[in-house]
């Protein structure tokens, strides 16, 4: 399963890098990438512009989408396993609302003039601050209950969306910029963006994989998992923070992209079962493929670019209804 998905992902990257205004064959794409990595010169017969388009324009965007998709899916696995709730997703603790608030604030005071990274930075700080407020709000006596976590996330997110509404109200003509950022985009992402998300993705994957078996045991509930030798409270806290930091990095780079983190773990659980040691790597690959597919669709197939967050929700929503319905009917039979 992992090998199959890895091959599909590789193929998708090669195909996607060739698609767009300039059509380039997958073979040429592979040759360009190889030339860049090995430092050799481009083979004769390949337009140097192609090299620039593939390596400097399309690949950074493609790899950012791949890594964000994979990371959101892994974060989704983590949140669903920790909160014991299949409806949880990377945004359940309000991380996305925090990031959105931070970014809106940065856009309102027009801080983007200082640096291109100031909006992502504000988004990241907003997301992390929200995470700690939610954790503080949910913890009683040092314990974090799953339902109080979910409830705290909902409360804080509701307050923040009111705040975002207020910022939009203040923003006047800037409001379009804010709305556009909130809907998410991979347009004009660069190699530094790739590096940033790569760090988060690798850390998230490794840590999630390390705790894979503990996560399985935690599905039995805290009393049982404690008695089986898992330090449930500590593991839960570590993984919530890791999952949220990974999500915060993704959101600050790409805006809010929904449904990938919710649907991918479900889809993969159908195929490989609930064992998190299999689910984590497989979800990473599937999330990467799905988001790359959606971004390629909006970049190169549709007549004009639809915001990626809107597209994933438009495709993901009905699809989720289908899965949900099938599961319900399956439970009846």
């Amino acid at each position, binding site marked *: 399963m992992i090998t199959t998905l890895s091959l599909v992902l590789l193929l998708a990257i090669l195909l996607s890098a060739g698609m767009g205004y300039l059509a380039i064959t997958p073979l040429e794409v592979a040759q360009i990438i190889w030339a860049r990595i090995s430092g050799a010169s481009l083979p004769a017969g390949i337009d140097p512009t192609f090299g620039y388009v593939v390596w400097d324009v399309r690949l950074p965007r493609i790899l950012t989408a791949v890594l964000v998709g994979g990371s959101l899916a892994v974060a989704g696995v983590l949140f669903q396993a920790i909160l014991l709730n299949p409806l949880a997703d990377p945004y359940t603790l309000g991380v996305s609302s925090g990031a959105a608030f931070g970014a809106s604030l940065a856009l309102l005071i027009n801080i983007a003039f200082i640096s291109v990274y100031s909006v992502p930075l504000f988004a990241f700080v907003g997301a992390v601050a929200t995470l700690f407020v939610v954790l503080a709000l949910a913890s009683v006596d040092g314990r974090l209950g799953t339902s109080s976590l979910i409830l705290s996330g909902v409360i804080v997110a509701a307050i923040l969306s009111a705040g975002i509404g207020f910022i939009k109200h203040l923003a006047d003509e800037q409001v379009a910029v804010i709305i556009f950022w909130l809907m998410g985009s991979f347009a004009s992402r660069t190699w530094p963006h790739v590096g940033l998300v790569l760090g988060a993705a690798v850390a998230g994957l490794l840590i999630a994989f390390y705790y894979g078996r503990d996560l*399985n045991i935690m599905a*039995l*509930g805290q009393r*049982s998992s404690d*008695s*089986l*030798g898992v330090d449930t409270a500590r593991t839960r806290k570590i993984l919530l923070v890791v999952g949220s930091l990974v999500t915060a990095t993704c959101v600050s780079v790409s805006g809010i992209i929904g449904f990938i983190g919710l649907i991918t773990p479900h889809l993969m659980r159908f195929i490989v*079962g*609930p064992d998190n040691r299999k689910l984590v790597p497989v979800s990473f690959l599937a999330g990467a493929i799905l988001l790359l597919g959606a971004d390629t669709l909006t970049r190169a197939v549709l007549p004009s670019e639809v915001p990626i967050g809107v597209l994933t929700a438009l495709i993901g929503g009905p699809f989720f209804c289908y899965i949900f319905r099938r599961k319900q009917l399956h439970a009846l039979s």
Partner: protein
Amino acid sequence: MPFLEARRISYAYGERQVLRDVSLALKSGRFYGLLGPNGSGKTTLLDLLIANRQPAAGAISLQGRELGSYSRPDLARQMALVPQEFGLGFDFQVGEVVLMGRHPHIPRFATPGLKDLALSRRAMADLGVEHLQERLMTALSGGEKQRVVAARALAQDTPLLIMDEATANLDIQHTIQIFQVARRKVEAGGIVLAAIHDLNLAAAFCDEIFLLKEGALRAAGRPEEILVPAMIAEVYGIPCQAAFNDFNHSHQISFQWQQQRP
């Protein structure tokens, strides 16, 4: 030296004192029953003994060492728990859940060894759930689920097995099955501590009874010494008779179900 010993432990939820000065000791090869009305502190006492909560006063030692000095995995190799309530977030198979009992014995990135598989299989056989191995936990009946949870705790292969009203939702056949398996563990040198509501079940299986009343240990000893009409009337407020029963070869209690008409 007792395996597990609590010395004058107390616990309070905020202002409300739920346990006062409870002392007890558990020794190998004995079946212990923890009895008492609802709200008498049974679950809190078990929580303290499995290190889920820390006592406000007093001390607990496991094999002569302070309980708090054990790591979670170390503790999980010494005692297993069969909880009363059991929920499962995801669709694991029965075999996978039972194998989870081996978690504290398997190093982090290792796969289960032959011994792990053999112990899981034997636990499933003991509780008669082998045939369910590939079924999903979510597709089982309440009784089947509880037997799988008991099999998981048995597969953990610990000296001490703690049962928290483990058979409260089971029919009589499966209740007796689980208690017989627990009894066999005791005959083999293990220790069982079971919180039990059914006094007759406790009297039939336990070597020693701890009777809690309003957070204090009211009495401790052999079932026929403790479960006498005067004591039961004092703790539970119910009139009863107690006598050795020839049919089931144990001390049994007969309750007055209805108020006597004049």
